[in-house]
């Protein structure tokens, strides 16, 4: 596959200073406020961070990432299983994606770039998920057809 399908990249300009943005991203309580996750403890390079998602509709879904680097005040990176997947599926053996937060001072503000890469490695769960949701649609449609045919 091409790079187009392997990564997500977003850049935002923030008014806050780089030190302030660094804190919002690496202090686990501040991170939890805006990311909407209740974290069990501070982030530390090389350690696993655990917690529970607090986003409406996904409350209680497990959060588990491996922090791969913390380079103050420029880089925070972790690997995870994207949280969009079905929580009922055990993905512990599947590949992870890499999430990187890169901060650059820009005047008095901060340019923050987020990349998530490695989606190509997720072919299996992604396709299985696609199959499941389609399969559901299909059974509804086949029921409709059956009702129609049976009159």
């Amino acid at each position, binding site marked *: 596959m091409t790079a187009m399908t392997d990564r997500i990249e*977003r850049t*935002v300009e923030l008014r806050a200073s780089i030190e302030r943005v660094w804190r919002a991203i690496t202090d686990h309580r501040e991170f939890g406020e805006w990311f909407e996750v209740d974290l069990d403890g501070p982030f530390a390079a090389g350690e696993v961070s655990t917690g529970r998602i607090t986003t409406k509709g996904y409350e209680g879904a497990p959060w588990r990432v491996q922090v791969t680097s913390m380079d103050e005040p420029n880089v925070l990176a972790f690997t995870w299983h994207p949280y969009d997947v079905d929580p009922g599926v055990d993905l512990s053996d599947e590949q992870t994606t890499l999430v990187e937060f890169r901060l650059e001072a820009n005047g008095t503000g901060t340019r923050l770039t987020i990349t998530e890469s490695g989606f190509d490695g997720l072919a299996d769960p992604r396709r299985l998920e696609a199959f499941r949701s389609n399969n559901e649609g299909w059974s509804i449609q086949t029921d409709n057809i059956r009702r129609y045919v049976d009159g």
Partner: protein
Amino acid sequence: MAERSLAQDDDRAAVVVFAALGDSTRLALIRRLGDGRSHPIAQLANDLPQTRQAITRHLAVLEQAGIVTGEHVGREHRYQLRPDGLRTGRDYLDRAASQWDDALDRLRHFLDDDPTDRGDTQ
């Protein structure tokens, strides 16, 4: 009238797809092809109670419905899912991207609303 016949074509195509899916052996085959890779018939037929000839016929039905494609590789006949036959991975990536957009919006608001970063702390 042209519209009507297009709609009828759509209906016919849908009937072919639904008919192809309305069979437990064929659904089992789709599940085995769910990794997106190409598989030889022998591997797909493994553990299924049907004969290899029956499996070959089922795969032909799926191919006609546009759900899988087959190809000859040497003496082997291999099959794989068509990327557009099921919903593509692109949708998945779009959803992940929009989740990041939402998270970044929340980060921006979080920083803008932060009382410790207002002018009075300078």
